[in-house]
């Protein structure tokens, strides 16, 4: 058993190379298997038996689906944010953002001081 101890960059590069090599080997195998058996029969999109015209009807966009999911599962956080930030008053948005950014700045200063103290 060999343990190669290196830096993370070298490890990433070597492992990415290994991944590409493996992918090429697998692709060659897959290509040789499927080449003869691609069928063009029934090449229409499967939409539960409907024709493609149905897609011209209004459907929610992918982005709306994603945000819909996020809003539903993070409803409380979303509501709080909406009530605080979307009041239409610029000053309220500004004060909200400056409080949070100020807090993050404070946290980063504490983290830097702690790091310097520990080392």
């Amino acid at each position, binding site marked *: 058993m*060999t343990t190669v*101890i290196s830096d993370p960059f070298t490890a990433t590069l070597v492992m990415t190379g*290994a991944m590409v090599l493996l992918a090429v080997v697998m692709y060659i195998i897959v290509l040789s298997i499927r080449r003869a058996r691609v069928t063009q029969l029934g090449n229409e999109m*499967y939409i539960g038996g409907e024709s493609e015209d149905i*897609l011209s009807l209004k459907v929610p966009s992918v982005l709306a689906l994603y945000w819909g*999911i996020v809003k539903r599962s993070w409803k409380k956080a979303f509501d709080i944010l909406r009530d605080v930030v979307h009041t239409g008053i610029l000053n309220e948005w500004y004060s909200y953002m400056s409080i949070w950014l100020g807090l993050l700045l404070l946290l980063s200063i504490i983290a830097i001081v702690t790091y310097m103290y520990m080392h």
Partner: protein
Amino acid sequence: MDVALLILSILIFPGLMFITSLALFSEWLLRKLAARMQNRMGPSYTGPIGIIQPFADLIKLLFAKEVKKQRYSAIGMAEIGLILSISSVVVSLLLLPISPIRFASTYDIIVFIYFYAVWHTIGLIIAVLSYPNPFTVAGLSRLIAITVVVEPTVFIALLIPTLLASNMGCTPQYSIFCASTWSWRLWLESPTSFIAMALGLVSILIASQAKLGLKPFDIPEAEQELIAGHITEYSGTLLALYNLSHDIKLAFTALIITYLFLGGPYPYGHLNIAGILLLILKYLASLTVLTAIRASFGRFRIDQGLNIIMKYGLAPSIAGLIAALIDVLLL
């Protein structure tokens, strides 16, 4: 570095051939155990107690079934995406102690996440988008919504043993290798490290269930509801590759839980009987827990699923990380 050993590791052991065999066995065990828990037979006819059924399914899809070319599809792209998602998981095995050639470096947990979370997901997204379809797109949007919550959970859960092992003086610091070889000691190191490891184990079990798309988190696939979700249009070789990718991810996830939280073969090594038996026992235990969760629940709705992952996955992992930090900073 021994290039021949590296190639052997990625192609034979623990690479493609070994992980494929393990993946097919794991799929059989999952199906059989889940069936018995639900008073069904499960795979029974192909091989002794149906053990080679997943292999037979794979061979049939690869060699007998045709690939359906849809009007807007890109078969080559789908294949490349699926192959990338498989190879990224296989390559991640090089960071575990099971590999004859092991990569270990400081902060290689980030390298691990880069392959296991980022490349795997990118490969899957490429593959899914290569067969455009309303069901596919709905499945993909659910998959992405779940990924947004699951990947941070996995990362935080994995950070717990790496942080604790580094604190105990294991080098290289913050490496998967270090966490794997030392994780069995972390349980009994101190009360806070025990709490941190227990919370980490719970959260990674929940997150793995969601990452694997097993019930109750099979929301992107959503059989019946979305036909087959993000794999609606797959057939033949493509379906074989997708199934293989899923099984390999299952086997790899169980291996990760076995090594990083249950201690792998340690305190024995890989090269003695006691160590190998212990490793197999822990692997089967983690797979059984995943199966028991899969067999006990029905599918959640997407928002319920996300809430459950946040409540029982993300929150325990953050609590576990805080316990680990307390252990590192105060004790």
